[in-house]
């Protein structure tokens, strides 16, 4: 059960959240004008990255807000969480865990 920092409520247990897939896939302004291939791409294709990944969560059993996160899918540590509409933050490529979730590092 991950510990996820809601940009509104702070760190909360994963049980309160719903995952909502890859972030920054904007719905086209005028879908009807979109060709078949890019429309298929929009609907279904996902980066599914191994490493830092921009994704969406919703604090479902909390403030109810959707928000974005960058999580390293090879460690499950979050590098950042940020509100919808905010730009994707620059984060170091490798995760060593957010303040709340540890990462003691080399000793």
């Amino acid at each position, binding site marked *: *059960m*991950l510990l996820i920092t809601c940009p509104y409520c702070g760190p909360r247990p*994963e*049980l309160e*959240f*719903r*995952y909502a*897939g890859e972030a920054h896939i904007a719905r086209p302004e005028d879908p009807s004008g979109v060709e*078949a*291939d890019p*429309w*298929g*791409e929009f*609907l*279904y*294709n*996902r*980066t*599914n*990255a*191994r490493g830092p*990944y921009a*994704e969406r969560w919703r604090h479902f059993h909390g403030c109810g807000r959707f928000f974005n996160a960058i*999580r390293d*899918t*090879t*460690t*499950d540590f979050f590098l950042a969480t940020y509100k919808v509409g905010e730009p994707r933050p620059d984060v170091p490529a490798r995760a060593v865990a957010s303040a709340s979730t540890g990462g003691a590092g080399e000793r």
Partner: protein
Amino acid sequence: MQKFSGLSLFAKAFSSHKGWEPQWRSPEPKAAYDVVIVGAGGHGLATAYYLAKEHGITNVAVIEKGWLGGGNTGRNTTIIRSNYLFEESAALYDHAVKLWEGLSRDLNYNVMYSPRGVLMLAHNVHDVQSFKRHVHANRIAGVDNEWLSAEECKAFCPPLNIAPGMRYPVLGGALQRRGGTARHDAVAWGYARAASARGVDIIQNCEVTAIRRGPDGAVQGVETSRGFIGAPKIGVVAAGNTSVVMAMAGVRMPLESYPLQALVSEPIKPVFPCVVMSNTIHAYISQSDKGELVIGAGTDAYTSYTQRGGLHIATHTLDAICELFPQFRRMRMLRNWGGIVDVTPDRSPILAKTPVAGLYVNCGWGTGGFKATPGSGNVFAHTIARDEPHPINAPFTIERFRDGVLIDEAAAAAVAH
């Protein structure tokens, strides 16, 4: 290939088993092959085996970043069945079941295919309707699947709790008698041995890091942690890692990779005669020949490559198991692990050519591809060898998503009212 049999076992016993040879070769990679398969899971190895056996293509390398069979093949709950709803799926999975039936003898390796019956429980009226639809669809597709009343379920699986007062009462079940289990590791090893004997090179500890494409866009080979390996045809069979490997060729995939957990209990004497699945409350259980109860849990909510997941997922599965089988409440979990499954939007696999010439992909089996291993390898080998799909896998294209021709087994089971 050294023959395996009771007799050879007996004979070798007298020479203290000194005579056993390696089950597969561990060669150095050659500079080039006719076909490179990325991923030595069951599907990749089976593909290589059938390329050699049925299409005479033996100059094949199977390239594996870890140890063969160490992906999902080595960590699944081994449920085999073919009673899928849509005729496209039923045909694909039943092709596999037919191959399972003769697989041990074909490979000369006992994969312990055990058609002990798979019972899928219905817990509400919607389940009943949905399963009956399966039963009817399967019957005319020539796939065995029968409806059992709750009492018949209990007779088939005596530990099952069918008390009417349960939170999720058992209203009946769909039984596929030809369904069952097989020994997961033996499947990988048996294919590896048989493929190796036919000339296929299995290269372990060798990670594919890039796919090289020529000026015409067609593939030329793969970069690996052990150097470049040329090939005009590349089959990607990398299960949870498909998106990552396909991205090396510039192809974005309709896939997401999720952790899927499983667990075993301590071994006990045989008490559980079949396989029981309950999709409604997320419980999948059988008993292995060694005696552990083998239990499948759900996927975690988020994409991940960590091969593990949250405690709450296993917890949720075990509360369902305890509810269905209250006499197992004091049994104990021995080990809990995870795999990474790649899931398509319609929960059906992709077994197809790709927009890149010479590149083929076999993926998207999600939580249920072990059962398809022989059939998948068989038709995928056909697809690679002939550069066109076998009729059985023809519907399982990448383009079906763009076009909206989904084979949506998951939505078909969804509940609404």
